[in-house]
């Protein structure tokens, strides 16, 4: 055995890890899993450049929801306007019918008088 061989054997000799090394490694691995994403990447995810691509989908869903809500609001407002208009129209027709019916009574009485009927005193 020459000197080189002795040096290699010494270098590659099995060395026992320090006490508690395995526990520390496992604990650190567990911590890494719980860590939140890096803050600087959040805005990228918002615009669809996130690692998973889920941010873009959420953004699109939010936009679609806004459009649906806005459209629903417009449709509801138009429907309410139409209902109010129909109610107002019905009220006009009712008012004219009531007025007409009372004028009809007056006219009938006048006709009776004109035709020489007995005046209703």
């Amino acid at each position, binding site marked *: 055995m020459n000197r080189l061989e002795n040096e290699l054997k010494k270098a590659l000799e099995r060395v026992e890890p320090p006490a508690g090394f395995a526990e520390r490694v496992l604990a650190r691995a567990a911590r890494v899993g719980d860590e939140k994403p890096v803050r600087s990447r959040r805005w990228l995810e918002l615009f669809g450049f996130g690692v998973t691509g889920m941010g873009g989908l959420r953004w699109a869903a939010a936009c679609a929801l806004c459009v649906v809500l806005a459209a629903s609001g417009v449709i509801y407002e138009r429907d309410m306007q139409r209902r109010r208009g*129909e109610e*107002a*129209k019905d009220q006009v027709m009712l008012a004219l019918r*009531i*007025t*007409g019916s009372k*004028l009809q*009574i007056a006219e009938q009485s006048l006709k009776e008088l004109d035709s020489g009927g007995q005046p*209703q*005193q």
Partner: protein
Amino acid sequence: MKRIGIIIALLFAVQWPAAAQDWDPGGALKKLSAKASKAIDVTLDQSMLQFAGAFLDSKDPDQAQAKKIISNMKGIYVHSFEFEKAGEYSEDDVTPLRAPLKEPLWSRIVNVRSKHEGQNVEVYFKKEDGKFTGLVVIATEPTELTFVDIIGPINPDDFRRLGGQFGIPKVEIDQDPAGKKGETK
């Protein structure tokens, strides 16, 4: 302090003629409404009339005529009350409705009183600057009372043309307010 007094006085001076023109029979109507078993209240101011006009169908003859009538109207107020039995309202309840309808502004052109059926109809027209600007109808029956107040320029021809529509007769309206046509009192 003096200035505030002057401003208040000016405000009253501006408001008073308007209040005098817009006759409010609200108190008398409230009393009647409290006694009635059924009440119909139609209150349409100018903005509501314009709004309703947009929904009236010009192809329908009745609605087309209504649209024409209300086009220049400032307000239509109809209050109709039904009572359980005769005597639930009295002449004293009706008198306040009639009180502001005085000459020369107002003319009663029809006053039909039927003792037999107990039906009474009074028709009043308001005339300003030679034009009809208001119509009031007070119709009473033993168990019913109807008060109609139409504000705005009224063309008697429109009412004549309404014969057969809405049940409105071709009422002969005398242009002369002094000629109380058809008064049968």
